[in-house]
């Protein structure tokens, strides 16, 4: 797969194949990012589509100081947060909907093979947002601290510190639960 910058140049020259290639390259991880936020596959699909569309619409917004990948992640994260902000009041008003779903209904849980990983998903959810984001972006999305910093809008060092505290928190929780 060519570098993103080459694909982008082709996209800007009207190359539909390059456009498709960029979407295919990142659609799964962006969907996963959205799913992690909104916990619902249909909503995650909608956010994924919106995030790509917005990222392409605002291509000029990232030029010069970021990669397409981090730009796309940033947009997807903002879209997810925005979605949650809009949805939250409705959920709070609707007790039935607000009830915590049973573990077996978790959209993430359906894809998780081991019990430990399933439990880890729940423990990650208990982390403060900054730690949760950095831990998942680092381990599951395999991003560099530099990329993470750009996506969550902090320095590389802050991303590292949040990762450390996130892992330490998980270590304590997992130790308590007998996972480690």
């Amino acid at each position, binding site marked *: 797969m060519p570098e993103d910058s080459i694909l982008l140049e082709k996209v800007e*020259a009207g190359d539909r194949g390059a456009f498709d290639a960029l*979407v295919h390259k990142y*659609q799964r991880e962006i969907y996963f990012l959205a799913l992690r936020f909104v916990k619902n596959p249909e909503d995650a699909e909608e956010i994924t589509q919106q995030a*790509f569309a917005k990222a392409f619409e605002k291509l000029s917004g990232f030029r010069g100081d970021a990669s397409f990948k981090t730009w796309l992640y940033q947009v997807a994260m903002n879209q997810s947060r925005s979605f949650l902000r809009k949805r939250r009041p409705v959920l709070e008003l609707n007790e039935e909907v607000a009830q915590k779903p049973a573990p077996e209904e978790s959209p993430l849980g359906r894809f998780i093979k081991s019990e430990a990983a399933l439990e880890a*998903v729940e423990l990650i959810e208990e982390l403060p947002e900054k730690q949760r984001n950095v831990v998942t972006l680092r381990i599951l999305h395999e991003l560099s601290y530099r990329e993470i910093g750009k996506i969550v809008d902090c320095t590389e060092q802050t991303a590292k510190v949040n990762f450390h505290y996130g892992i330490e928190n998980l270590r304590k929780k997992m130790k308590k639960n007998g996972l480690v």
Partner: protein
Amino acid sequence: MGSCENYRFMITEYVDGSLPYAAVGALEEHIRECAECRRAVEETRAVIDIVGSIDMPAASAEFENSLADRIFDSLKEKNMEPVESGRVYEFSSRTTGWKAIAALAAMLILAVGFIATRHTRQQSGPALSESPKNAQTEDVKLEALTNDELSLALELALAQIEADPSQFENIELEIAWKDIVPGETDMTSEDYSWLDETISRTAATDDSIFILLESVTEDEAENILDSMDDMEKELRTSAPRIVS
């Protein structure tokens, strides 16, 4: 043996693979001597392995196979899909003040130039057999000016438009409206007043707005275009569309 707390952060970096090489030796030496930190290394490794064992779930095959088409179609609806001539979708939201003015000035001048062309073609006949409403949006590369040249061009454009706003067809311009939000650019209150007085908003999307702008005579347009001889930077924008 130093305080183990001082090694905690290094242990996370060590297991994560981000500990600077120069620090690895000291940490490994400490780990050899300290059972507690050895255990911390093993536990940290186990935590990262467990988290790493979470699979990244895929969306439905139908969604994955159709996503690119759906995104492309949604861009097309907004007339923002990639096209062969390489249109840039929108001005940067990080555009600084003078660039916003530059963009606006460039579009104004482009509008003037474009309308002059249309006017000429109208007089000569055949090119206007096509309905203006169906006129294709063209992609135009336009080079921007130095700050001083831009100021001059903008002033000229404004003056010319004010001088005779009604002779020509309306032109539809699309600009990134948020790029010229008061307080976020160097635009003066006069600039905003002018915008308010001169344009009429005809349709808005989430991030942009379509503007109707009335233009100038052919001669005046020529004068403005002449002022753009010395161009320095490249600024790309989509050409205006005639809407009436």
